[in-house]
């Protein structure tokens, strides 16, 4: 049994960050609108970085343009460039929705992008719905930017009460740029469908019209606490109740996920469905049972965001019997304190938004045999000579094309494959 979890939050004047600024958080939220587009009112560096973040994990789906700000615009302003960029994007791609985000420079200079938004709305030639979101990186960090960006979508939501649909839910806090996000979403929808629940809208991995129709749902499901601010606003404005659930990693979390949703919707959980799913999981476990016995007690560290990192820590510790030495939460969310209660006793040390230098030193000192993290943790895994299983953001050095989710019941074979193969396939010579 692990010792009582310590929760360390460090104060720095400088740090090597494990998360981005609010511009990145907002970008992640808006880019999830599948027929939408993001226009950055920024110098080229921000645009280049965001484009790379998208393109390296999905060569087909990058919907981002920039307004071409030049240093001379820092003196005279460049609102006109933002408007031209909106027009060009509207004309070229005909998106349903365009989010205009400003970066640090135009925010400091004082470009009036509210006025640009108004001008764009008044322009009859621009057909897309336009939203200006103040995203300068110095204001907030990534997760706060993500939360605020989701809330900013409320103004587009249809308030017609008569449209309410029974047993339909919205998924909030789902990020379409996460590793295996497509497979995860397919599995979550399959599971909900299996217990008679329909997904109305995914915020954000859906078309704009679905975001608009979000108030139709009977319940908002908040994954791991990401997006709870939006759920609260929708509760107040549209009287939609919400439930915060763990990201469904593993059998228990998946069962609990379905139970909580059914409970909120006043439905009976379909036990036949659950038992069929359990039977399939059992088959997979049986096929690698000796490896699992062998790996029992394997020490590991997890580097991920609050929503997914805590879900994974519970799965690895409770279901696979791993010894989670360090859980480094790259970013908080508004449900952090609640979430931390759930892992009390399961994890030896928890770091919240740590400095990367100190986090790596802590993990190195902990002595681990496996690391769960992102592309940015590749060097650490190499230095520690342990396998790295990628699951958190950003994963830009692995592609995910197959329907093998990390979430839900069907995630179990995927996790077992990844974990067992990462160890037994390694070359070793005495």
């Amino acid at each position, binding site marked *: 049994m692990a010792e009582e979890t310590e929760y360390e939050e460090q104060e720095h004047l*400088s*740090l090597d960050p494990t998360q981005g600024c609010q511009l990145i958080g907002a970008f992640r939220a808006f880019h999830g609108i599948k027929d939408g587009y993001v226009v950055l009112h920024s*110098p080229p560096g921000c645009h280049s970085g965001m484009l790379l*973040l998208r393109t390296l994990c999905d060569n*087909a789906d990058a919907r981002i343009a920039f307004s071409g700000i030049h240093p001379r615009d820092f003196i005279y302003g460049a609102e006109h460039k933002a408007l031209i960029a909106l027009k060009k994007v509207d004309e*070229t791609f005909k998106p349903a929705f365009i989010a205009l985000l400003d970066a640090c420079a135009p925010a400091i200079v004082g470009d009036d992008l509210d006025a640009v938004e108004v001008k764009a709305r008044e322009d009859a030639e621009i057909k897309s719905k336009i939203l200006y979101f103040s995203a300068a990186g110095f204001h907030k960090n990534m997760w706060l930017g993500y939360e605020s960006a989701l809330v900013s979508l409320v103004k587009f939501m249809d308030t017609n009460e008569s449209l309410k649909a029974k047993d339909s839910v919205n998924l909030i806090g789902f990020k379409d740029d996460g590793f295996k996000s497509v497979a995860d979403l397919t599995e979550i929808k399959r599971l909900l469908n299996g217990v008679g629940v329909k997904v109305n809208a995914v915020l954000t991995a859906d078309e704009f019209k679905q975001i608009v129709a979000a108030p139709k749902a009977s319940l908002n499901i908040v994954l791991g606490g990401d997006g709870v601010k939006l759920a609260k606003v929708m509760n107040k404005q549209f009287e939609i109740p919400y439930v915060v659930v763990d990201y469904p990693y593993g059998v228990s979390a998946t069962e609990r996920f379905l139970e909580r949703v059914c409970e909120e919707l006043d439905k009976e959980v379909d036990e036949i469905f659950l038992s069929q799913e359990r039977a399939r999981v059992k088959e997979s476990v049986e096929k690698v049972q000796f490896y699992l016995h062998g790996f029992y007690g394997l020490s590991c560290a997890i580097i991920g965001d609050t929503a997914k990192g805590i879900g994974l820590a519970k799965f690895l510790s409770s279901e696979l019997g791993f010894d989670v030495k360090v859980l480094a939460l790259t970013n908080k969310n508004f449900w952090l304190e609640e979430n931390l209660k759930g892992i009390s006793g399961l994890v030896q040390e928890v770091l919240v938004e740590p400095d990367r230098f100190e986090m790596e030193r802590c993990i190195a000192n902990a002595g681990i045999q496996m690391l769960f993290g992102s592309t940015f943790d590749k060097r650490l895994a190499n230095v520690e000579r342990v396998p790295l299983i990628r699951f958190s953001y950003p994963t830009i050095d692995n592609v995910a094309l197959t329907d093998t989710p990390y979430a839900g019941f069907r995630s179990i074979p995927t996790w077992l494959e990844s974990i067992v193969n990462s160890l037994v396939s390694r070359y070793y010579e005495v």
Partner: protein
Amino acid sequence: MYEEENEEAGFLRPLINAYSTLPLHGITAIPGKISGALMVVDAIQDAVPLIHGPIGCAFQRKINPFKPYMPFYETPCTDMNDLDVVYGGEDKLSQGIKETYEKYHPNLIVVITTCASDLIGDDFKAVIDETKANGDVGCEVVYTTGDFTAKSKPVGYQDALYAITDQMLCNGVKEEGMDKNEGSVNIVTFPIHGAGLKVEEMASVLNEMGIGINKVCFDHTTVKDLYELPKAELTITDYPMAWTKLMKKRMGIDYYATVRLEAYRDSKDAELLSPYGIEGSEMVFMEIAKRMNKEGEAEEVIDRRKREAIERLYEVRKGLEGKKVAYTGMGGLHSLEVMLLQDMGMKASVIIYNTRGLEQLLSKDAIREVLDISLEWARKYGSDPEILVNPNTEEAIKAMKRTGTDLAVLSSLNNAVHEINKEGIRTFNPLDFMLHHQRIGFECPIELAFQLNDALKKPERRDPLLCMLEYDNCRTNLIPHWAKLADIFMTLREGAIGDTDKATYLK
């Protein structure tokens, strides 16, 4: 040293190639100054960057746009927030320098400023001077803003090197007080290239000419190595660099860029743009010898090395002579087309000019000039090629078939190579050659000849999966979505929107 001797070269090259056709640099995006500066810091083993800005600038820039397979793992920053933007970030910068030194114990901290810190007017120099004077850091600290080198590109890269030269190497050091490594040169290549691999032969030829190698950068370069750069008499770079000019001005150390863009502007001699191949390499070696007063010794060495190489080349290139080759006209820049004609004895059958994207960067006259140079090169070596300007794939294939083209030297970055293969025309990837093999020296053309011979024997690729995709008619390597991204980027990028647009907006 970099790849050849690296046991992982087998996977490293395909890894590098995996990212070589991303349509990003100058096509749909331009990396900002921070990335360029990080390239420099990353190439100095005992240096650490400190990004003076919000966390986004440090987090996002971990992705290395020049080498996406190799993130910048260390990007500490000062975590600038809105209070700092109002009241100034100087205290945080000072504290950040101290913390960075305490954590990493580097020999050099390079402070990289960002939009936020640039705009609010933090006095970087004063903060650094004061922090150093307080004795809080035991290493060099310099800062780069992107403003030191005006329009020299890549801005961040040029500026960071300039900053190191200005604030560290030439700061208070007198030319006469400097120890000299007599008769030696520095060889400096862009850190994206494998410096060790690419200068090995060059260093060997120079040594034989009696010219010593003071330093090769960037190849496991340390701060100590940088301090020793001024000991040389000449610094050789691949492209013109602002920092070498500064070192000449301050310390009298001459510089020489192998691609002589500045000399070309005056003379219009296209050979100055082509430092590779037998003739190009001879020109480079002779120029270095001239500057080092070693012309006498050099002549014999160069003649002998050249003769030996030509003898071997003529053996190897037997299957290539007279073969018809299609390629992209680049005016000799990068020299591959010159090597095909001059060293391989191949005949130009089709020259493809892709001018899309260039229109925003070059004047019509300059584009014409590039095209003319390519054509003149071809004619000089007895070819009368078909010229295609911005053809679609079908037109390009038709021309290649019509002219009986044996090999298309075309990159997937600009051409639908898979479609050409499907039509039974073999291809050679010039990007792969440029990234991994091209270098100054007489051995390089021999290696090229081997590779071209291999390419001519490659089995046909009848059904590439890539042919399943629909491509843009103009940007033939891109699906329509990416072609639109490229078009819109070229429309909106800096300078493309003028004052007229602003006046219209203000109405």
